């Protein structure tokens, strides 16, 4: 089942611009994770933010979590062509992850 909803479904920006994707979920969580999927490949874990954290950084990635609004955002700064991929949020439940539908990000050169 899919708990998360990602917004927007698709995003096209110029190289160098920042990209922001949002994720909403429905139930309480232990943590929320973001993954990237390049076309034809498996998903790759990007970052995990715990329910008691509000913000986390990893390189050009910044993730925020608002548990009161049950939402998270992923910001990619100074985008590059290699960032073109689909991005998924997933909330950690009882052993399994509940996945969103993903945001397709296209970086135009």
């Amino acid at each position: 089942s899919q708990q998360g909803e990602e917004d927007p479904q698709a995003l096209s920006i110029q190289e160098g611009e920042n990209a922001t994707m949002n994720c909403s979920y429905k139930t309480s969580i232990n943590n929320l994770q973001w993954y990237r999927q390049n076309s034809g490949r498996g998903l790759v874990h990007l970052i995990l933010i715990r329910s008691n954290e509000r913000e986390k950084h990893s390189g050009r990635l910044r993730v925020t979590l608002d548990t009161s609004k049950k939402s998270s955002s992923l910001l990619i700064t100074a985008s590059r062509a290699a960032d073109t991929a689909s991005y998924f949020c997933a909330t950690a439940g009882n052993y399994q992850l509940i996945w969103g539908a993903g945001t397709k990000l296209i970086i135009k050169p």
Partner: protein
Amino acid sequence: DARVTQTPRHKVTEMGQEVTMRCQPILGHNTVFWYRQTMMQGLELLAYFRNRAPLDDSGMPKDRFSAEMPDATLATLKIQPSEPRDSAVYFCASNAGQYNEQFFGPGTRLTVL
């Protein structure tokens, strides 16, 4: 460089045939997941195992799908008989804890004609 491996990477078969997909989780990971991904349905969890025991296979059509872990280094997903609607990419993933990140294999792209 530990990674999840899956075989075969691609499979084309005819309706009614049996399909077996294999996965080798990362050594030391005790939870294994099977997912199916299609354009229409997105990423769906089919089944998962912890310490080789099935925890949940409610996402799997029971009449034709079966998943097993014969040992800690091998997980299998079988479809018998296969149908065109089973065409999808099947991913295996593993992790080492209840809330930890999952490591995905490269997937098996299945086409049923």
